[in-house]
């Protein structure tokens, strides 16, 4: 579990992971050296990755689709999904499916090509969830104003 200081600093990083140690020290009143130590601890304990979330439609990738997947050959499917450039995230899931994925495409044609590749690997999929709009992104454990 995390200390109160660690949680506070984490919430600042959740809000903006590019905040400098100086920024966080100023905003929290915690000395810079302590902030530095805590960020290092957080890196090993809890933080998986620092990533910039983009509006991909602005770089030509306007189609975001999620779906669940059931594979005949799980190992092969897992590798295929892990390496595929259009697949943003992959999670292991339960019930009737093996994986839940988020994929990002330029257009419908790219998506159809991807679906063909899935068919060729004997991979079945659930209904598609097209993400139309972001209402909230990574809001968990965010700094409260």
């Amino acid at each position, binding site marked *: *579990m*995390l200390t109160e200081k660690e949680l506070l600093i*984490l919430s600042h*990083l*959740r*809000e*903006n*992971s*590019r905040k400098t140690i100086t920024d966080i020290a100023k905003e929290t009143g915690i000395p810079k050296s302590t902030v530095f130590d805590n960020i290092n601890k957080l890196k090993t*304990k*809890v*933080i*998986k*990755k*620092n*990533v*910039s*979330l*983009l*509006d*991909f439609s*602005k*770089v*030509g*990738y306007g189609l975001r689709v*999620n779906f*669940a997947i059931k594979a005949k050959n799980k190992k092969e499917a*897992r590798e295929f*999904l*892990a390496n595929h*450039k*259009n*697949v*943003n*995230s*992959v*999670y*292991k*899931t*339960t*019930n009737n*499916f093996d*994986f*839940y994925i988020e994929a*990002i495409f330029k257009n419908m044609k790219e998506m159809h090509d991807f679906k063909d590749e899935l068919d060729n690997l004997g991979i079945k999929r659930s*209904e*598609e*969830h*097209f*993400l*139309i*709009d*972001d*209402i*909230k*992104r*990574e*809001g*968990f*454990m965010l700094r409260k104003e």
Partner: protein
Amino acid sequence: MIYIKYKTIPRETTMMQKKDLLILSNLRKDARMSLTNMSKATHIPISTIFDRLRMHEVGLIKKHTSLIDFEKLGFNTRANVCIKVDKSKREELREHLSKHQNVNSVFKINNGYDFLAEVVFHNIKDLEEFMENLEERFNVTQTQVYYLIEDIKREEFMADPLLMDLIN
């Protein structure tokens, strides 16, 4: 009357060059990367990176964030929940999901459902209570739950600067 048609190109598109994709993919790889290190890796001058970054932070870049390992914090139940709600309660539900502290992300979706919510709870019991609450308070008509048991890959799209060298 002469009708002159102006073709407007969105500003973002005209400014998008290979160097932007390099910078963005490095940020996708590690959002905390210093400009110095990014300059070394991309051979783009620090001043250019600084300017591009500042420009993109208004619009293209939604947020720099740290992704958490929820399990390490004691949150063992995570799921993507599809929710279909009656039109009369849709706005209210949207507010509820936006403010709810166990809801990490919410998207407006189509294809039968209204919202997709990524939720994080300590255990299944808490998740079930959340779902029951949705049904009682908001007349939610249909839900579908996909438990997320393990992260295999997370936010990797456009996160490989080496790939950016090949595409445009």
